[in-house]
């Protein structure tokens, strides 16, 4: 009786361990394997071919044919509906109109936050000076005008002027990528009514983390 109980315990441990391995392997995402996928080795069974007259082979051949037909049908259906077709579980694409509205609102909120901020005189003066030097150089290198910068407590707003909207679209990244000593940056170029006239736009810099970090 005692040995039967012991065998039961050992059996439970082994069965549990094996189940764990099986479950883990089944659930494992092959894309996440750190090991490069191995080339498929030719199984030994492949060399032991069954005769084509074998009923099992014939059954497999029929199934393969059916699957090929089904695949062709599905591919045809996909080509017919190429413009609107999506994977059944695909996520909906973002709505351009809503996204644009969100960007405009985001920048409006930033400008409001900056405008409502009090000025920390010491920080603002030092930041204005440094920002003017950095942004002025970036503008000069890229053929547009740095109009001015206004740093408050955590936010800075800088104004730029380009010869045209097309020029702004080409070189705005100089403003976005400017070092601005540890600030996040953002710029939105609203399409103007006349794209040929000089174009002015603000860039916003959120320097919250710069202020929280070690002093420059």
């Amino acid at each position, binding site marked *: 009786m005692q040995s039967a*109980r012991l065998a*039961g*315990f050992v059996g*439970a*441990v*082994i*069965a*549990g*361990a*094996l*189940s*764990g*391995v099986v*479950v*883990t*392997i089944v659930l*494992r*995402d092959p*894309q*996440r*394997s*750190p090991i490069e996928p191995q080339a498929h080795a030719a199984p030994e069974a492949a060399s032991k071919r069954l005769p084509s007259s074998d009923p099992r082979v014939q059954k497999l051949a029929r199934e393969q044919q059916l699957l090929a037909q089904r695949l062709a049908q599905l591919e045809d259906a996909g080509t017919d509906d190429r413009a609107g077709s999506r994977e059944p579980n*695909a*996520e909906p694409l*973002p709505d*351009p109109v809503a*996204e*644009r509205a*969100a*960007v*405009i609102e985001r920048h409006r909120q930033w400008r409001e936050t900056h405008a409502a901020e009090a000025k920390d005189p010491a920080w603002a003066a030092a930041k204005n000076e440094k920002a003017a030097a950095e942004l002025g150089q970036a503008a000069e*290198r890229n053929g547009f005008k740095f109009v001015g910068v206004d740093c408050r407590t955590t936010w800075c707003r800088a104004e730029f002027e380009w010869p045209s909207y097309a020029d*702004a*679209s080409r070189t*705005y*990244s*100089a403003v*976005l*990528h400017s*070092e601005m000593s*540890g*600030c*996040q*940056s*953002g*710029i*939105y*170029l609203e*399409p103007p009514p006349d794209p040929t006239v000089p174009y002015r736009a603000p860039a916003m810099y959120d320097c919250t*983390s*710069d202020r929280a970090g070690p002093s420059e």
Partner: protein
Amino acid sequence: MYRHKLLGLFTVSMGMSAAIFAPSLADAAWRRVSGLSCEPPANSTAIYKLASGLQNNSTGWVDFVCPIQEDSDFKKESVSVLNIHGEDRHNSQYVITKACFTYFDSTGGECGDPAMSGTGTGQYQLSPSRAKWQLITSHFPYVLVVLPQYHSTLGASTVRGVWWAIP
């Protein structure tokens, strides 16, 4: 009672073996691009594409933008590791990196807090803030790498590549 013990042993063994065989953190899915995929501004000169990466041999800082491929299984907002690798060969200037995005349907974009190398020289691995990527899903991500100018005795700085992963 005996059955309960058996069930308990089974469950514990299953849990332990699953824990041992389960993918570890090191198995996190990752992607990377060579620095050779990064692009300097259109009017740049003295940018060398070498086996060791993209090099700034010019007399000024140069902004490189590196592509970040994204799809429904590998979204920028899920990125938990972002490392930019290269070599800083300037002893008073530094390398600046930022995680940025371009607006999906408007002209403009945003960049997050930077990560910078020190003013010394040597290999760098920089991990800029990914906060911007986590905020908004629809915009197109990229990485900004600003390399210092060529140093007359120490040579040119390089970006070797960008490596990012999701858990």
